[in-house]
Structure formats: C-alpha cells, structure tokens
C-alpha cells in the first residue's frame, strides 16, 4: 500500500511531544520511546506522548494501530496478557512506573480504566460494584463507603437513576447505565487519571451523548485519555488528539488544529476517510 511506504519517510521527522507545546514536567503522564509487543508482534514503536491534567486527550487511528495497547501500557495492564512485554519508560508525575520495584497494583490505583464493553461484576449489586475497588482493598468503614459510592455515582451522572436500586444487580441496568456504573466504579478509588478504551462503541447515540457530557465534566478533576475509532467523537470531546497508525504516532496536537490543518498527509487522508 502506498500509505505504508510514505509512513517510513514521515515518522523520522515528527516530534510528537513538542506539538502540544508544553514543558515536559507539565504532563501528568507521558511516555518516552515506548515500545510494546504481543509475542513477536511489535505493536507500539517508539511512542513519545504526554497527557495534560484537566484536559481530554483522544487517541484515534484505524483498527489494530495500537491505540488500546498504548493506554493499557499507561497503567501496566498490557503486561497481564500472556506473551506481552514493553520497553521504554512511562512517567507518572515524572516517576517511571516501569522502574524496578514499582508495584503495578499501586499504579493501577492511580490510573483508572474504563473498557470498551460495560463489564460490571455480575454477582454484585450496584452498590458493591461501585464499592468493589475500595472493599477489595480492605476498606470496611461503612460511612466512608456510603459516601464514596454516592459521590462516585453522582460524578458519573448515575446517582439519580439508581439511588433507589442500589441493591439490584449491576447487570440489571441498561447498557449505557452499566457503562456509567463502570465509570463510577473507576472513580470510587479516587484515581488521578481516567483512561477510556472506546467507552461508547457498544452504546446507542443517546447513551453515547451522556458519556460524552460526562467526559467533559470529568476533566475538571482528572486527566482523561480516550481511545476512539469515532473521529467525530474525538473532535467533540477532546482538547488534544493523537493519531496512531501501524503502531507509530503520526501526529499529535491541539484537536482543532489537527482536524482543520493536519500537518501530515497520512493524518489528512485518515480524517477524510481515504483509508482506515
């Protein structure tokens, strides 16, 4: 394919991090030359990208380009897949989360994640789903749990819909509600970063609109990263956008700029639907 040939020329000159025009230490989390593999399959190649606090960063690109892997490297979820490995560094508040002696569990408590398909714990009530991260880490104080559950459900715009049904099964909610339940569950452990892996791809347009509204309000308190294959969604919700192709970061910058004046030809061709 021609696009593949062009890729070789393009990537050497792109300087992804500088495109957001921020001093490095301002990034809540950033990667330096991050590489990732599934077995022999090299899925991320020398990615250097940073996410700013109180901003939404979207990652777009065609299927299989490594979007999900990239965010799964940011909270050390990637390594849970058998045969998966990484190289390079990821700095959370300028401390490498892949350094020796760092417990991945503590990283995951600071960097929460919401998945593509809503995945509430089917054997738990709505309440227990939200409280799970706290309870299973040993929190027993009921007043504290009650507060955390209410706060998280309110932040996820779900409290009013479920406050009388906290004892119902988490799986009895509608798809959109389940996804907001999963967001509440992630918020309950008070992470600093929320990563979302195509959070709306299993939802209808109304549920999607609610999640997008929710993302806009979450950025006031958190650093938000969202993977999406929906370019319009990236344009609507994000402040910065990164375009990934075949495991390489092609372009990264201010969302409006990237969509209106892409610097790279590959980006433009993807945005205009010429491939993908």
């Amino acid at each position, binding site marked *: 394919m021609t696009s593949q040939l062009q890729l070789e020329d393009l990537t050497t000159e792109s300087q992804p991090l500088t495109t957001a025009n921020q001093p490095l230490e301002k990034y809540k989390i950033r990667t330096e030359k991050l590489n990732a593999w599934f077995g022999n399959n090299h899925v991320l190649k020398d990615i250097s990208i940073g996410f700013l606090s109180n901003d939404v960063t979207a990652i777009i690109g065609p299927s299989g380009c490594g979007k999900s892997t990239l965010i799964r490297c940011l909270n050390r979820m990637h390594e*849970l897949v058998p045969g998966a490995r990484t190289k390079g560094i990821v700095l959370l508040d300028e401390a490498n989360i892949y350094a020796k002696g760092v417990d991945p569990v503590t990283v995951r408590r600071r960097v929460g994640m919401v*998945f593509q398909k809503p995945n509430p714990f089917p054997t738990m009530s709505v309440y227990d789903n939200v409280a799970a991260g706290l309870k299973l880490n040993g929190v027993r104080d009921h007043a504290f749990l009650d507060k955390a559950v209410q706060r998280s459900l309110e932040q996820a715009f779900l409290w009013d819909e479920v406050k009388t049904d906290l004892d119902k099964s988490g799986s009895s909610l509608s798809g959109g509600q389940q996804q907001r339940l999963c967001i509440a569950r992630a918020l309950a452990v008070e992470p600093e970063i929320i990563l979302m892996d195509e959070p709306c791809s299993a939802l209808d347009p109304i549920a999607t609109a609610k999640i997008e509204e929710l993302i806009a309000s979450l950025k006031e308190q958190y650093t938000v990263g969202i993977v999406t294959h929906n370019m319009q969604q990236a344009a609507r919700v994000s402040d910065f956008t990164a375009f990934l192709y075949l495991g390489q970061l092609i372009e990264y910058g201010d969302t409006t700029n990237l969509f209106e004046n892409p610097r790279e030809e590959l980006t433009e061709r993807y945005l205009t639907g010429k491939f993908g």
Partner: protein
Amino acid sequence: MLRNGLSTINLQFITSLPGVPGETIGGIAPAIQGTLLLIGLTCLIGIPAGVLAGIYLAEFGNNEFGSAVRFLNDVLTEFPSIVVGILVSVLLVVATHQYSPVAGAIALSVITLPIVTRTTEESIKTVPNSLRDAAMALGIRRWRTTVSVVLSTARSGIITGVLLSIARISGETAPLILTILGSNFFFSNWNQPIDALPLRIFHDAFQADPFTRQQAWGAALVLIIIVLTLNVGVRLATRGRYSSSRTRM
C-alpha cells in the same frame, strides 16, 4: 423402590442398630451415620484439594506443569473406583492393620478430586477476561481478584461439580469394602471399621431372610433422600447473593 422403600422406613428403622437375622426389628442407623461422616470427611479433604487444583489450573496452569497435572487428572477420572480402593487399602489399611473412616474418606477423596478439579477449572474458564481486567484495573491484587470476582462469578458451576461428586461418592461401594469394611455398630473410634449405606444395601440384599432383604430397599431410599436433600440444601444456601447485600461480600 419407592413402594418397597417407603413401607420399610419408619423411626425405628432409621434410629436402630441392624437386627439379628431372623428377628423383625433392626435398622440402619450406623450406616446413615457412617455415610454422613464419610461425606463430611471427603468434603474436608477431597473438595478443597479439587477446588484449589482447579483454580490453579485455570488461573496459573498455562505451562508444562499445568498440562502434566491436567493429564494426570484426566487419567485419575478414568480410574475404576475399585482400583482406588485397592490402592488406598494397601497404603493405609494394610500398612496400619486397621480399617478406618479416614481410609474410606481418602479413597472417596481420590474419586472426587478429578471431578471437582475439572469442573472448577472449566467454570473458572467461562468467567470472561473482561471481569478480571476490570478488577485488576481497580488496583485489586491478583489473588483477591481470583477469590472475590472470579470465584464468585464461577460459583454456581463449581457448586454443581461439588454436588455431582458428592452424589457420585455417596453410592460408591467397592472402595469402601476395602477401606471401612462395614460394621453393625456406630462409629466409636478412628481405628475401627464403620458402616455406610451402600455397604449396608450390598450386605442386606444378599440375605436369605426376607425382612433383611426388605431393609435394603429402605436403605437405598434413605441414600437417595440424603443426596437429594444435600443437593437442594446446598443450592438454596448458595443462591445468588448480589441482590441483598451491602455488608456481605
């Protein structure tokens, strides 16, 4: 069996020692006690071992050791129960010169182990990875994820396996002849033979005296009732709990 059994069962039948041949009183109380004791002991030995092995195989057994265990487990499933009886008998009964309830329970545990291991592994494997991911992403430790998320999701499948294996061992006769022998008396000592319902049925059914033969029917019905009651009881006690609790978990 229902007709023959029901006419035999009364309070005296289930609370008395076996009678002397020729008389028309006597019951199967030691056999009931023995069977319950054996089921209880097996639940303490074979079932935890099987559940743990199943968890290991499903969650951590993706290596050569895991495949070896899996293979041995399959071989064990196909072991005839009398062979298990002979094995345990040689290792325990002959070595210690004593028939004992523990030897019986160990033989039964060897029979339950592969069934419980296999069903536990299979039910854990049906738990979607997305739930493990969700738990791990919350910063929950791996063992806690396994215990509180994976096991609780796989619970009903594991319980089915356990109940199946209990039903299976409740009726096992051959390995018990070689390990607990059978007895006309209640359990008195860990070194003495005890009775069990399958042995009692086997024994009574071959007697010349019609009263004793009749008792075999009663014993068979009692055995079925015990298995059924356990089944229903365990199912009721472990029914899905998500709907109630904010305190339990």
